[in-house]
């Protein structure tokens, strides 16, 4: 077999060296009645046959590569420069393990250090770890960190009602074993933050929220810190190429979904959980961290550091159980950020802003349609004259994916569509969307 090189002759020589007669003898410890079951799998396929099957399956999906695409809601269609997959798919990155042996892992370690450096700047925090599974689990671990920090006297957490419903779901799963009161606020965050009290461990803001609204974060840190709580922001990192960072507003922990920075939508994964903290929380944060170090000759190198927080040292007292994370996805984002750089990231964010705002103007001008109030970045809610479900089904048939029917998560919100516009959408596509919406309402 191509991936199992030893032939029967090799096996015979190896058995002789071990001093046994058959491979079966190696499995004498396995209960005899249960040993070597028939699994019921098909026989193996050649590479050609296997890839044909995969290609046929993949072709059955509707893909952003062949549609006018306006669906976001947590998974975003952005441009990925050719250098990103070309470099990240090098076998030396792809097939390396976690960098436990720093002398032979400087490539991975330096890349993580560069990621930490750029992401620290983007979020406006003091330290960023090597990644979490996704934006939702990063936020859940941030809340757990704040709850542990607050102790038993602070069993209350405050989250926005307009947090991504799947993030909310993950948060509930992660907090199942904690006696925590999860309070959802509907006011603007700056107003809701005044209700943080001595029982509140943390106050969470989504920046922007699930409906695309970008709230002013001024004043929140003072209110939350005044009550002794932790200020957590779940952010869109691409937006931060243009808008003020959560850290500049005094956030203690900033989490994000990093998929938009160089990674495809891939039916929802693998994505990138970004996790950053202010200085005073560095030794309490979960996840792997890479630090700068020197060898005996004074040469600069990079190494996994502050490991005393982690499960392989602390076991049940560890701050989290996380070990494997999203290394390769993080690498894609690192390459993306370096390829775009300072002006490129800002330019992509500006394209998103301008195209989304022009699209909103076009849609708001269609009779029967309205765009929700408030500041937004690349995503906004559209009130529709006919059920959004009908619009989605009608437009998808003509190659336009107009956005998310909000009733998927909120059954009563049948006439609302969450529309996302990015640098991928041309003026012609936006005009096609507007024209299609107009026709669908008739």
């Amino acid at each position, binding site marked *: 077999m191509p991936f199992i090189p*030893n032939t029967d002759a090799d096996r015979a020589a*190896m058995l002789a060296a071990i001093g046994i007669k058959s*491979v079966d003898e*190696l*499995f004498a*410890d396995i209960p005899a009645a*249960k040993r*070597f*079951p028939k*699994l019921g799998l098909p*026989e193996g396929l050649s590479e050609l046959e296997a*890839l044909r099957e*995969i290609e046929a399956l*993949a072709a059955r999906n*509707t*893909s*952003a590569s062949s549609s006018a695409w306006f669906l976001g809601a*947590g998974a975003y*269609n952005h441009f990925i420069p050719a250098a990103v997959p070309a470099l990240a798919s090098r076998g030396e990155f*792809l*097939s*390396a*393990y976690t960098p436990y*042996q720093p*002398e*032979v*892992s*400087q*490539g*991975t370690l*330096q890349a993580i250090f560069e990621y930490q450096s*750029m992401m620290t700047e983007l979020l406006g925090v003091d330290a960023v770890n090597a990644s979490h599974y996704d934006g*939702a689990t990063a936020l859940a671990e941030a809340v757990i960190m704040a709850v542990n920090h607050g102790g038993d006297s602070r069993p209350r957490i405050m989250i926005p009602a307009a947090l991504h419903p*799947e993030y909310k779901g993950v948060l509930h*799963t992660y907090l*199942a074993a904690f006696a925590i009161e999860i309070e959802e606020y509907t006011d603007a965050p700056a107003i809701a933050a005044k209700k943080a009290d001595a029982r509140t461990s943390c106050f969470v803001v989504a920046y922007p929220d699930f409906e695309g609204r970008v709230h002013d974060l001024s004043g929140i840190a003072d209110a939350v810190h005044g009550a002794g709580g932790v200020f957590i922001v779940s952010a869109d990192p691409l937006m931060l190429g243009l*808008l003020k960072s959560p850290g500049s507003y005094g956030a203690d922990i900033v989490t994000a979904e990093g998929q938009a920075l160089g990674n495809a939508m891939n*039916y929802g*994964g*693998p994505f990138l959980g970004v996790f950053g903290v202010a200085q005073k929380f560095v030794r309490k944060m979960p996840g792997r961290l890479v*630090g700068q*170090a020197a*060898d005996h000759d004074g040469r600069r*190198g990079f190494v996994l550091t502050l490991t005393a927080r982690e*499960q*392989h040292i*602390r076991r049940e007292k560890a701050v989290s*159980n996380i070990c*494997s*994370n*999203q*290394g390769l996805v993080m690498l894609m984002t690192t390459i993306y950020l*370096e390829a775009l*750089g*300072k002006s490129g990231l800002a330019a992509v964010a*500006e394209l998103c*802003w301008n195209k989304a705002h*022009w699209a909103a103007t076009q849609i708001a001008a269609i009779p029967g349609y309205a765009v929700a109030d408030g500041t937004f970045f690349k995503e906004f809610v559209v009130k529709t004259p006919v059920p959004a479900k009908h619009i989605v089904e009608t437009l998808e048939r003509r190659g336009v*994916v107009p956005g998310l029917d909000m009733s998927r998560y909120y059954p009563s919100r049948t006439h609302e569509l969450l529309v996302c516009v990015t*640098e991928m959408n041309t003026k012609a596509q936006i005009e096609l969307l507007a024209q299609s919406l107009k026709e669908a309402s008739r």
Partner: protein
Amino acid sequence: MNLTPEPLAYELSSPGRIGVALPKCDVPVTTVPAHLVRESLKLPELDELTVVRHFTRLSQKNFSIDTEYYPLGSCTMKYNPKANEVAAAQPGWKGSHPLLSDQNSQGSIELIWRLQESLKKIGGFSAVSLQPAAGAHGELAGVFMIRAYHHAHGQPGRVKMLIPDSAHGTNPASCSMAGLTTVTIPSDADGGIDIDALKAQCDDTVAGIMITNPSTLGLFERNIEKIAKIIHDAGGLVYGDGANMNALTGVLRPVDVGIDVMHFNLHKTFSTPHGGGGPGVGMVGAAQVLAEYLPGPIAMEVSGKYSMKMPAHSIGRIKAFYGNFGVLVRAYTYIMMLGESGMRRLAESAVLNANYLKARLEKTYTVKYPRRCMHEFVAMGGVLAEGIHTLDIAKRLIDYGYHPPTIYFPLIVPEALMIEPTETESKETLDGFVEAMLKIADEARHNPELLHDAPHNTPIGRLDEVAAARNPVLCYRG
């Protein structure tokens, strides 16, 4: 290896450079309110070629499976077939969106369903969830399921999880995150679980046991059926840590010996690339008793139509959307290529390779539990000569072009060297590794400085990790 120091991207930066040309804005501009705009953004400024050379050079500072033999115990560093990468790069996957209707995502959902079905067959499970993103994440799902089961059955007082002393650190850490307390069960003289110590803990507060089989010592737990019965009789459930499933594909279905819930690391057993630390998949499989508690949604099939549905008593979502889908494509491609007989050949070859290495090395490197091993074994590095430690052997192996084995784990073996060859290595590669290990043993006695100063041919020498942790520098400071 590329031995030339590589500057940080920030140090290569020059004002005004950019690595990607972006389209001009083709719509009228809308002004961003001034109070929202960030004042500065200190990212590097690089042209495309500089970026390409930077990352290519960085890649040359890594050991990887594609370049070196990597016998890293417990991590199953097998070869990752290139077809997996082609399979995962299909435009139909890359541009597919988790919130598009099921009807428009039939390809993705069918792939998830097919992989679920394959893994059910391999493990003997009633149902499978592919949502968890890593082994530790699958463990977390599993202990949440056990907790939820006891709560649903009116026994919230079952909060004690039993964990053998050879277990991975993630086991107790996952329990803490699920609000469970942990009790460590010692190993017996043979490397198995001490049955008397186990029985002594089996009261009505037992939630279950987390058992890694083969254990991290590379030994099959011969009493597995007896242990499962003891736990079940005490009202507990059995969690199987599937980190070492590479020894058992086509050899034993874990559910057949009493496992109730288990994770497999698809990035180990089913050959998806480790990527320098992920992304993985910590698929969870459940026997009938826990099937409805799985995290979700999971894929269902009715008359050729595929949909994503939540199990009836699901612990809920453990991640947004449906898991690391791109990794699922790779694992399924690999399973398709191996097929029924390939699965058994995989485990047989992994176990044969490990026993061959053990037979050739154990006279020089003492193995604490010398019975027949499975896919890996744990030798001791500190026995060669006075003043020589496992760390020295590990670092010297690098000079010979081998990635070191896992060291100082499991914790119950002093100076542990945990060696896992995997099935994708040829006899010639194993022989080369044995020669290097024997040479190092000789050097340890006659020229110990070679070991103490190792590695010699790497971009950097041993780093001062204590100083790095005392004054952590976690980002570029200009």
